[in-house]
């Protein structure tokens, strides 16, 4: 359900939070849907229940989920993930890879900024032609 | 709530009983077939003999029924008063086996470790084992006594041969002997770490006073000293030793043995409290007695091999006079080496690795 890399230096609770948010984004979890209980989640994924509890509390604080006493934890109806937020981070990753490659090739910071500027101008030119 | 302060614990009792009950049944069976069955058939056998005499008088010249009856009565009397047949074997080995199963085996199989993490105190564990051991060794005798008494109640004819009093005093005497041997075994259970060393040490020390005196006597005569001191010693104090228990009950200093048995049980309890579970499986529970053990085994082996070696050489080679002293000394040295090796090896063999 959620990919957890236990060996990663990212704390497991943070991975759960990220995983849940991604799940909502991808439509795996619908708003109003009931989440598995802490106990079931811990068992399903063989995780420390305290860790799962911590992730759920954090998600609740961020208003991603709501807990109804005696009924369980649900995906909040109000939570509207900003789709662009997710997309943005992907774009950032792509840029980062390009920048690192560029450094290997010996580009300086200024040269890089010039390169981006040139690219942007080219694009604008294309736009105007339309 | 008052009961809880007593160390008796039903759960522990049941568990220990489950582990050892077979021993009780085996002993009861042995006693039944080697003694009780004969006793309760006495009257039948007597009747059969009478019948046979009637049918074939030619086979029995001057048979006197009364004399025969007295003869049977006397041999039954002897049976109840002296240890006969398998009885001494059961009296010696039954308590040793019970103590070995209850202590040595639990140490060897490390079940005592798990037991000590359970909600039982050390006192409870020890106390219930002693109770189970008592039940285990007394019960076979009690069962057989009850059978003999019941037979007496059912058959009038039997009453001509033995009485309830005889059965009861037989039971009493044997329970006393069992109790003393059991205390002795429990003492060794508390200083050994595994069932095999427990059995070996108990048996060695059981025969030690007589065996060692005998060894001394033989060695002294090898060197040409003939003295009656040891003989006198054994005649005077023999009944105060463990093998002395096998004598007729009227010759045994009962009070002495009872007191020493109680002292041994108390010592066993105190030593058990000092048992360290990390030494479970070791030959000896206490490191401090390892040297004593090695020296003891070495001295005894040396004395024994010295005698055997002298005899052996004396048998093979012809000497004009006595076997030369040097042969005996060589025997001692071989004995020292063998004894030290055996003792060290047995300690090393069972040494628990950290």
């Amino acid at each position, binding site marked *: 359900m959620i990919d*957890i890399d236990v060996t990663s230096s990212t704390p497991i609770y943070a991975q759960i939070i990220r995983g849940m948010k991604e799940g909502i984004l991808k439509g795996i979890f619908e708003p109003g849907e009931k989440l598995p209980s802490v106990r079931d989640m811990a068992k399903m994924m063989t*995780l420390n229940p*305290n860790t799962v509890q911590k992730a759920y509390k954090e998600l609740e604080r961020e208003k991603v989920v709501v807990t109804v006493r005696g009924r369980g934890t649900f995906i909040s109806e109000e939570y509207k993930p900003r789709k662009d937020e997710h997309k943005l981070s992907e774009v950032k990753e792509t840029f980062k890879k390009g920048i690192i490659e560029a450094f290997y090739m010996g580009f300086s910071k200024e040269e890089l900024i010039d390169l981006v500027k040139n690219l942007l101008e080219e694009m604008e030119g294309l736009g105007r032609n339309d | 709530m008052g009961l809880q302060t007593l160390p008796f614990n039903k759960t522990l009792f049941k568990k220990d009983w*489950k582990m050892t009950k077979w021993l009780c049944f085996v002993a009861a069976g042995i006693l039944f077939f080697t003694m009780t069955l004969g006793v309760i058939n006495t009257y039948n056998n007597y009747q059969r003999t009478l019948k046979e005499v009637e049918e074939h008088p030619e086979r029995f010249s001057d048979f006197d029924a009364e004399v025969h009856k007295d003869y049977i009565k006397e041999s039954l009397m002897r049976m109840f008063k002296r240890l006969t047949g398998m009885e001494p074997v059961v009296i010696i080995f039954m308590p040793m086996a019970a103590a070995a199963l209850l202590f040595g085996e639990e140490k060897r199989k490390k079940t005592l470790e*798990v037991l000590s993490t359970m909600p039982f105190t050390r006192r409870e564990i020890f106390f219930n084992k002693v109770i189970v051991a008592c039940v285990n060794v007394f019960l076979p005798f009690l069962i057989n006594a009850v059978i003999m008494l019941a037979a007496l109640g059912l058959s009038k004819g039997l009453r001509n041969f033995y009485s309830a009093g005889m059965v009861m005093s037989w039971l009493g005497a044997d329970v006393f002997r069992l109790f003393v041997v059991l205390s002795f075994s429990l003492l060794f259970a508390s200083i050994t770490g595994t069932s095999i060393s427990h059995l070996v040490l108990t048996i060695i020390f059981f025969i030690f006073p007589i065996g060692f005196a005998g060894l001394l006597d033989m060695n002294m005569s090898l060197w040409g000293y003939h003295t009656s001191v040891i003989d006198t010693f054994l005649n005077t104090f023999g009944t105060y030793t463990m093998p002395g228990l096998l004598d007729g009950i009227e010759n045994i200093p009962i009070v002495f043995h009872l007191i020493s048995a109680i002292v041994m049980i108390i010592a066993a309890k105190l030593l058990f409290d000092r048992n360290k579970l*990390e030494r479970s499986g070791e030959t000896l529970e206490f490191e401090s007695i390892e040297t004593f053990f090695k020296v003891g085994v070495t001295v005894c082996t040396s004395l024994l091999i010295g005698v055997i070696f002298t005899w052996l050489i004396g048998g093979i080679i012809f000497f004009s006079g006595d076997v030369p002293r040097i042969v005996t000394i060589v025997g001692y040295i071989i004995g020292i080496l063998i004894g030290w090796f055996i003792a060290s090896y047995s300690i090393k063999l069972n040494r628990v690795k*950290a």
Partner: protein
Amino acid sequence: MIKVEGLDKYLGGDKILDDINIHVKKGSIYGLIGPNGAGKTTLIKNLVDIYEPDKGEVIIRGENIKDNTKIKSRLGYVSDFQYLYPSFKVREIVKFYKEAYPFWNEDRYNQLTKLLKLDGNKKIKYLSKGMKTQLAVLLTLSIMPNVLILDEPTSGLDPVVKRKVLNLIVDEVSVSETTVLISSHNLGELEQICDHIGIIHEGKILLEDSIENLKSNVRKIQVAFKGELPDDIKKNEHILKIESIGRIHQIVVKDNLEIVMEEIKKHNPILLETIDMSLEEIFVYKMGGEGYGFADIAL
């Protein structure tokens, strides 16, 4: 919940445990990690009153464990080898536990046995290792423990059974807030269920911390400068290690990430980011800094 202070233990003249200090909080799962022969089993046997410490004491739920039946009645212990009475039948062992522990929960037991197909008439000695471990875990969970101590419960089990056993423990913690101490020679087996970790090596506790703290106090930074790596960064005391590939440098920082980041920013880096590292890597650096090679710990 479990507190060990200044514990020494000698076995056969050798000092097996040296000044051990351990603190396990209520409701946490504590992983005791160390290579074979590090003293894990000896320590655990001291915790459950099989061995008696030569120095120091073991406090569980505020009381010394020594001969303490009150604490032991709710102390669950699963040993490395399952020393259950081999000649007993399964149902006889169950009966023994049931009578021995005052808080035994029959419903719980019945519920747990549904997970495990056990023949009650089978003798303990004929059970496989996995079966014995599962039976031991099951018995120990049915006594309603509030402290659970398990000595390498997963070693020698196949992955399916291993997961089953770990899940039983995880479930126990979520339901009853049981405090758990579990040992293993393999960090990977435990890191997903533990929240605290103690590393034991040659009879000493080298490190005791929450996994979260560990993950946050050793960090790796990736950095690039226009020129060479500045000298005062090379000499920074908070840096454990620097690895360079061309102009990209990977820097491992202990404890003071912010200070190092500030320091780097002063030199106008063209790239500065923190990157992921595995828990195993963290241990390597952490121990490496304290004079232990990775191979020694064999996580």
